[in-house]
């Protein structure tokens, strides 16, 4: 009857090794938010539709609400908490701030991680590539234009340079 017994899972989280107790049926989103207290990753639809829970697994955007913690053992999970460098926001985070890419901010961690995944392998994306990369991320506030401008700004492909 102990099918859901917990086991130690060893993974990397934001460049640091972590060991966490999780059952086979525990979702990565719950491990991050409830067990590890890393609440930057958001729970939106909780069913693969909104992108609020986007994290990077081995550098690729993935949905933490559809991923089991068990699958992540031995892999590198990166969340919004890992982007700041020495307490300073990354260039991409600053661009979201400066270009008003965040309003209520709920979609922002997922948007930033999806954009981060894009910029790592396509440092200078055109607008179509940015739109495609963010296609699974829903924002109820900004109307998306400011978000796209923020990513362009971080990639140095915007219409004007950052102020």
């Amino acid at each position, binding site marked *: 009857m102990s*099918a*859901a017994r917990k086991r130690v899972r060893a993974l990397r989280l934001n460049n640091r090794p972590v060991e966490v107790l999780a059952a*086979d*049926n*525990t*979702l990565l989103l719950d491990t991050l938010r409830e067990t590890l207290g890393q609440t930057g990753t958001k729970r939106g639809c*909780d*069913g*693969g*539709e909104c*992108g609020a829970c*986007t994290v990077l697994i081995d550098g*690729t*955007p*993935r*949905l933490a609400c*559809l*991923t*089991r913690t*068990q*699958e992540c053992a031995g892999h590198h999970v990166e969340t919004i908490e890992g982007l700041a460098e020495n307490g300073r926001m990354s260039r991409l985070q600053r661009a979201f701030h400066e270009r008003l890419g965040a309003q209520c901010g709920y979609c922002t961690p997922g948007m930033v991680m*999806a954009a981060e*995944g894009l910029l790592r392998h396509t440092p200078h994306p055109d607008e179509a590539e940015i*739109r*495609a*990369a963010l*296609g*699974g*991320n829903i924002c109820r506030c900004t109307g998306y234009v400011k978000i796209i401008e923020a990513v362009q700004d971080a990639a140095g492909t915007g219409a004007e340079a950052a102020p």
Partner: protein
Amino acid sequence: MELLPDFRVATPVSIAAALAAGKRHPGGRFVAGGTDLMVNLRHGIGAPTALIDLRAIPELRGIASGTGGMSIGAAVTLAELAAHPAVAAHYPAVAAAAAAVGAPAHRAAGTVGGNLCLDTRCMFYNRSAWWREANSFCLKHEGDTCHVAPTGKRCHAAFSGDLAPALLVHDAAVEIAGPDGLRRQPLADLYAEDGAAHLRLAPGEFLVRVALPPDPWPSAYAKARARGAIDFPLAGVAVALRRDGDTVAGLRVALTGTNSRPFLLEGTAALLGAAVDAAWRDRLGKLVQKQVLPMRTTLLAAQYRRRVASALAQRLAGALGGAAD
């Protein structure tokens, strides 16, 4: 959303071990990327005691191409498939269909096998447990009436995977592992026109690879969807068309999203030997309209899906056939 059921995960590294795990866990389910199964489990649809993750089995991995055609592992992700240069060059409908699934995060996790074995979809089914319970469930799961066709005896939920029609027009075969060994059959024979039992797989059987024959015809895929950036097909159409001068020498058309199974259009032989003009496209369009069976399983009207399937088929065949007008 419900909590996930109390399952254990097995990660076999060989076909034999996966078959043994299937035998050991009669209440278990196979899983790959989980982008379809995990959502259904969170909706309280099914309570497997074990998930058998097929992705670590070497035979299910990788894309191989050569003079014998192409072989695609069932655990290949849609992102890998869409980005493979030989797939895009020789089987363009397949690459286009893979690239049209969901959003990047779905394609990074979602696999070929999971896409071909996707559960059928219906607006009365892809709902939370309390929503379905408040509606007395339905014929497909836990209930006894179909809310789409209440007097009927079968489920009309639509098969909505993008990849199947693109593989069908390239005459794909699938390799299936089961308790009796490996067998190979046409992809078309994997499916049945029944929304509650659309896969012809015996308990314990799973897909190993997809085989595409060599010398493919030029092909294309297009879909209509409610949300342009990310959505299942309301109707999806693949066309492969071989020309001989100005006339059509070979034609295959396959559809998804309109019926409980993806299927190859019948009667295309009557369209061979002619040039693609407005009258030809009209005949093709009518053939599509006759064979699709969209029911009220989506928010958009069934009649819209019937017409858009027909229009997409005509548009794709027109482009591949070099229509002058």
